[in-house]
């Protein structure tokens, strides 16, 4: 193959994926490493890449300590409550105490953040959310990253990380290919910050035609955050904690502003409030967690799912009251146009006027990610001044692989970071990465030509497979020897759907199903040796699929390991249908041995921030009993 090999040498900090956390990492790295070589490798075009490519209408993580609104520990309590206790509170506290400085800088750069006309404070959508005109959110932060980075390599699909051959378990850079020219890129770097995306399209979607593109999380979020780290042997955490979203049906338009700011509410097909119907059942399943405020997202999902199964669907979002106010109506439309245009397209096409008709809600297929109301990701070190010993190994946001950092979707245990928190995590990782280099931890890295050559051959194999085996058939996609990436994707989605609690199983699975699923995934991975790509676009899809399948494997293993139903409404272990704090008030941690492909699982202790609120709560609880 005539593709050139382009070696980018002597990089200090390589940022893989330039979404919100990647742009944050690249930007901040320049301050702590003014003479360092900072390079970004981005799969698309940095101006519009990552989950914020479309824009956002709200920044969902802003403390507002400046306005006396919330403190970082309040956010920790909020997030752990929403995740049924399972979060890394050290990482969350750390993100929350820095996030406001990120947002204030966004405003300074020109991001239009709405103000409350009366108080002059940021316009709140809810307790944590502030409203923005964020159509150009991504281009604005992209410009910041471009200003800091020595070079941005756009359209580079990073497929693998390079590993040091001098010292075990130390990163040495990354490799990938240019989706346009096809050239092979070798990035030799002292540190790598993986800020790639979480995983959409892991599960069979509800819409299986064109509408498959209208996923809740971006279709280009290909699980590379996990695929790259798992391949490198980094430990992962909470990968069972996939998320299911209750959203406007089909369009998956956001509901946050609708609930919080526009004061719309839900009702069942009979026009009744329905969440209370499921209180007793949930009380049995999760105990006192159902009494928490706000009610955890997964439990509200559970009520929605059960209500529909009880035959009292559809669930409606009652917009007809609020939308009589023309100002609120306008906010409702801007909300969609600013971040989920497809929902506006859907309402336009179906002539739905939310003033006159209440739109339907549904629960989505599951997604695997770590920055929204869920916490999948790598097992990362916390900050020195907050983290207990089990959570600290030297450098903030460093994974269990030396020199390899994670932020955003890649960093596990930090839900509710959203855009601003992800950018902040990128900043934290960047500072730590500079420190790591300055401490001399990245000396003497060795990467042999053999490692690079082997990866090169592996990367282009799908093109080779196609060239050779396409001769077997007259025409068409059906070939007994090779598999196209779309075919592999659909097979993976079906396995995940049917064996790991997808939407057609009403999110139900059990040990037997999971074991079958794992077997099927292993066979899929065998077949993927014969993945075929007709062109560079399909080669991109092949590697996205590799990352997605590795993510799926992790999800399966974690789901199998956690023998309880911690998040009813996200998924159910039919053989362990109850929350089990006795045995499972812990974080799950996995590692896939890069050499053997064997997975090992372990439990990690869960630390909670203890402050007056908790103590009061404990007292109350004691008094009650």
């Amino acid at each position, binding site marked *: 193959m005539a593709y050139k090999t382009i070696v980018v040498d002597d990089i200090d900090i390589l940022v893989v994926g330039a979404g919100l956390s990647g742009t944050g990492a690249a930007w901040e790295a320049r301050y702590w490493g003014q003479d360092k070589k900072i390079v970004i490798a981005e799969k698309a*075009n*940095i*101006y*519009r890449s990552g989950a914020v490519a479309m824009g956002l209408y709200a920044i969902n993580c802003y403390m507002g300590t400046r306005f006396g609104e919330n403190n970082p520990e309040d956010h920790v309590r909020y997030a752990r409550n929403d995740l049924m206790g399972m979060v890394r509170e050290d990482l969350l506290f750390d993100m929350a105490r820095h996030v406001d400085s990120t947002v204030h800088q966004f405003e300074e750069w020109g991001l*239009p*953040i*709405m*103000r409350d*006309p009366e108080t002059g404070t940021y316009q709140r959508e809810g307790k944590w959310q502030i409203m923005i*005109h964020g159509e*150009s959110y991504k*281009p*604005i932060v992209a*410009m910041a990253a471009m200003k800091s980075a020595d070079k941005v390599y*756009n*359209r580079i699909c990073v497929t693998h990380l390079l590993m040091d051959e001098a010292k075990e378990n130390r990163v040495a850079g990354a490799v990938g290919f*240019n*989706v*346009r*020219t*096809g050239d092979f890129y070798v990035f030799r770097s002292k540190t790598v910050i993986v800020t790639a995306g979480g995983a959409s399209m892991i599960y069979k979607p509800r819409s299986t035609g064109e509408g498959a593109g209208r996923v809740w999380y971006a279709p280009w979020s290909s699980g590379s955050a996990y695929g790259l780290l798992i391949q490198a042997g980094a430990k992962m955490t909470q990968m069972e904690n996939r998320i299911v979203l209750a959203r406007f049906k089909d369009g998956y338009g956001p509901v946050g502003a609708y609930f919080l700011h526009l004061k719309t509410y839900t009702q069942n097909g009979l026009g009744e409030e329905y969440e209370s119907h499921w209180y007793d059942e949930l009380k049995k399943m999760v105990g006192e967690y159902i009494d928490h405020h706000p009610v955890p997202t997964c439990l509200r999902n559970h009520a929605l799912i059960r209500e529909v199964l009880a035959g009292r669907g559809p669930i409606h979002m009652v917009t007809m009251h609020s939308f009589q106010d023309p*100002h609120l109506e*306008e906010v409702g439309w*801007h909300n969609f146009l600013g971040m989920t245009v497809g929902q506006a397209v859907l309402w336009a096409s179906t002539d739905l006027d939310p003033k006159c008709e209440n739109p339907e809600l549904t629960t989505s297929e599951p997604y695997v990610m770590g920055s929204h109301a869920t916490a999948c990701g790598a097992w990362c070190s916390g900050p020195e001044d907050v983290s207990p010993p089990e959570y600290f190994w030297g450098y903030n946001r460093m994974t269990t692989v030396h020199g390899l950092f994670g932020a955003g979707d890649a960093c596990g245990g930090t839900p509710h970071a959203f855009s601003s928190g992800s950018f902040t995590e990128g900043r934290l990782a960047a500072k730590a990465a500079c420190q790591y280099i300055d401490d001399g931890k990245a000396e003497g890295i060795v990467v042999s030509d053999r490692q690079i050559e082997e990866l090169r051959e592996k990367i282009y194999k799908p093109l080779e497979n196609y060239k050779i085996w396409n001769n077997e058939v007259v025409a068409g996609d059906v070939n007994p020897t090779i598999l196209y990436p779309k075919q592999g994707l659909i097979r993976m989605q079906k396995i995940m759907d049917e064996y790991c609690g997808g939407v057609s199983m009403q999110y139900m699975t059990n040990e037997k199903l999971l074991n079958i699923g794992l077997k099927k995934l292993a066979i899929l991975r065998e077949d993927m040796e014969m993945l075929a790509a007709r062109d560079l676009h399909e080669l991109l899809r092949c590697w996205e699929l590799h990352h997605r399948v590795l993510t799926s494997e992790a999800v399966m293993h974690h789901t199998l390991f956690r023998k309880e139903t911690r998040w009813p409404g996200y998924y159910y272990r039919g053989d362990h249908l109850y929350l089990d704090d006795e045995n499972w008030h812990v974080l799950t941690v996995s590692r896939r041995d890069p050499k053997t492909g064997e997975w090992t699982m372990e439990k990690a202790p869960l630390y909670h921030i203890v402050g007056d609120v908790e103590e009061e709560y404990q007292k109350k609880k004691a008094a009650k009993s």
Partner: protein
Amino acid sequence: MFITSNPFAGLAQFGITPGMMQIFVILAIIAVVAGILLDVAHKKSAKYFFEHTERMKKLATRQLSSSEKTSMLVQVILNEVLTSSEFHNPKRRIAHLLKMYGFIIFVVSSAVLIFFYPTEQYAGFWGLMWRVGAIMLAVGGWWFFTKLRVDVLSEGKKWYKLARADMFIVSLLGVSTFGLLWCFFQGVVGSTALALLFFALFLISAVVLFGGVYWSKFGHMFFKPAAAYQKRILMADGSRENLPPFYKRAEVLDQSTMDLVRDIPADQKFGLCIMKDEPNHY
């Protein structure tokens, strides 16, 4: 004068008579017209065009007077047609103007030479114009073909990778480049074989150029102005192809969404962000 020589006069030595050349020109014109008509009829593109226009008319918020329509036609001719104003990328606009005027000059001077000076060794102004046209076409063409063509610029493909869409540009490059080479070698003693070779390539290019209209992008010369005119009409009659008005900030400051920017001077421009770069981020 060498630079005013008439390349067609030299064809006699290959046994090509003026009559044959003139017939070729006439056939070429017929081929172009036939290609366009076949295209329009077979693809029903004209039918689509008019039905689409009718449908859009229903969305019109105002009736255009015939003088407005005439003025728009003039605008289209002055802007889109004569100065290629629709191009966003200034380099492509310059290349397009070079190609377009080069092609016109080249074709017209070829026809003049063939019909009025078929046997004269030197053709003065028209001989010179033939070269000017060919050079303009070749310069604009090669610039476009190797650098500006979207397959190269944005898709990152090698300039020599060809697709059917390149039939038109490649045949233009052929007539201009091979034409110039053929002309050059006519003047070099002992290069008859080379002159013949390049003439043959020139001839093949011309056959593809004029004979391949149905399959190539040749037709855009006729379709694009029509589409440009239609676009102007639709933007003026209020149907706007469903596009929102292209407001200036100052016009919408009364909207509640604009609170944050109300105090910014109305004439302040923010510059460019994504659109400041050429579309080749890879």
